[in-house]
């Protein structure tokens, strides 16, 4: 039996393909990102070592960088403030209420998740459209003389774009919270009921703390998702108007794939990795430090 499960050749056959592929496609590039961020490199020719030159340029000379950094935070904040509370409210009230059509409701909340980001963004482009869009048509139908072109206004563009992302992935947070609520043993709620606690009191005092692990995951997901945002800007605004909706990933994309400044792009990517790492560590440090086992 030992010989059977310790068969060296079989182990090699089973594990090497995955290990090699992962190392070459995922691990090696991440090392490269950090290494290349210290070089001035156009992606083809000889790279010259510049030390922290790229980072210096980014922090002190590139005016877009500050917008990009700030937009990442706005994006993350929007996602956290919309998706998590909304997902929580919907999941809690759906579990509490006895009503018809629960299955339909659940499907409706989740369904945007299965669409491609391109479809969602195109769809919202036509919803936001200044002349014919659904939103402005709606205002018109309600008799409100209010027309807006949210995406071409530098002040509102980033919020409008972040909102689309929030709409798209809200169902994910909803489903996570719902699954977690269902796994909480019934006696917790019964005990609270006997003690005379109201519905929402029960939820805020008992359910939310019990779901700390789930919320930790939601937070990491929403914040890193916001910091990494790229596709929405690329499709809906192209980083514009001007540079108003640049994010770090967009900065990286433009530097590497448009301006051939690969070293500089890698520096932006490296900064992004650090940002996400710090956020994940902070959340793990301060939220839900003890695992709850029922």
């Amino acid at each position, binding site marked *: 039996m030992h010989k059977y499960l310790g068969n060296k050749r079989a182990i090699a056959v089973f594990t090497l*393909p995955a290990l090699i592929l992962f190392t070459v496609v995922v691990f090696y590039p991440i090392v490269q990102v950090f290494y*290349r961020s210290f070089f001035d490199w156009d992606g083809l020719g000889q790279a010259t070592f510049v030390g922290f030159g790229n980072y210096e340029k980014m922090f002190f000379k590139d005016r877009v960088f500050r917008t990009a950094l700030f937009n990442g935070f706005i994006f993350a904040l929007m996602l956290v403030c919309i998706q998590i509370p909304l997902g929580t409210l919907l999941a809690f009230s759906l579990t509490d209420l006895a009503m018809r059509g629960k299955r339909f409701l659940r499907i409706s909340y989740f369904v945007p998740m*299965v*669409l491609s980001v391109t479809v969602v963004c195109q769809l919202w482009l036509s919803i936001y459209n200044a002349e014919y869009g659904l939103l402005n048509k709606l205002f018109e139908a309600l008799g409100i003389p209010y027309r807006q072109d949210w995406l071409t206004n530098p002040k509102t563009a980033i919020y409008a774009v972040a909102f689309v992302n929030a709409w798209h992935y809200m169902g994910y947070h909803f489903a996570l919270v719902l699954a977690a609520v269902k796994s909480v043993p019934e006696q917790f709620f019964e005990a609270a009921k006997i003690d005379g606690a109201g519905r929402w009191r029960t939820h805020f005092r008992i359910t939310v703390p019990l779901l700390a692990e789930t919320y930790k995951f939601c937070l990491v997901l929403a914040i890193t998702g916001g910091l990494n945002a790229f596709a929405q800007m690329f499709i809906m605004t192209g980083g514009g108007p001007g540079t108003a909706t640049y994010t770090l990933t967009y900065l990286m994309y433009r530097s590497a*794939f448009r301006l051939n400044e690969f070293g500089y792009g890698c520096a932006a990517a490296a900064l992004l990795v650090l940002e996400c790492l710090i956020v994940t560590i902070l959340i793990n440090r301060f939220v839900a430090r003890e695992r709850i086992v029922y």
Partner: protein
Amino acid sequence: MLARLRKWQIHWKIFLWAYAFFSFYPIIWMIFYSFKNNNEIFVTNPFGFPTKLRFENYVHAWNSFNVPVYFKNSVIVTIATVIGTVALSVMFSYAAARMNWRLKDVARIYIVTGMFIPVQVIMIPLAILVRDFGLSNSLLALIIPYVAFNLSFCTMVFYGFFRSIPFELEESACIDGASVYQAFFRIILPIIRPAVATVIIFVSLMAWNEFTMALMLITKEELKTLPLGILFFQGAFTTDWGAMGAVMTIASLPTLFVYILFSEKVEQALTVSSAVKG
């Protein structure tokens, strides 16, 4: 007291239905306008069901641009990614979960860490890698990275599943004189079918919808997948919303159908990752 409770419940029910409408209606609206002409979308009937189902929008969209090519590419990429990912991760997690070797935990954690790496971050080196390996001229430029990126998630799912099966299975296979490969294919694979279903759903949705990697790794028109292809209608179809809606609906129908048919399985597949990440 009861009356107050009723009222309270009604408020929440309204809230639940209102958000459902807000979440669902834009998609319905898109499908509606894919059957309308501009006059109907802009002026006569912007919100409701089309007065006449104009299938010619679909015919026009399908024929006038590369939609069939994009569709075919998306199908190929999705199928190849699913097969590649399932094969590699089943084999790897079997060895990591049930066989005896020294570094098995290190190897597993190494692969699962991939879940924490945002795709966008490594795009520059990955694009150079794809170029240097000469993959730019084939769909492998997408399939290989997709497989590599999905390994982490799938390994995690299969590993959990393999740990929950009794070890006596292999013991009896061993006594009966089967080789490790025979035991793997004849006994283990049939048992893990539910986990395979979860993984297939997750990976195929990801591969069908993926945009960022496709954008940075694919430059040739004839290799574009649907999410990437749709982008270029933006310019071409600005004046023809109906056809644009038709292309978007074509790209979304496969995933929508899968979701409506297996909704619970899909929700489970997409949320199962929460067990480890975070």
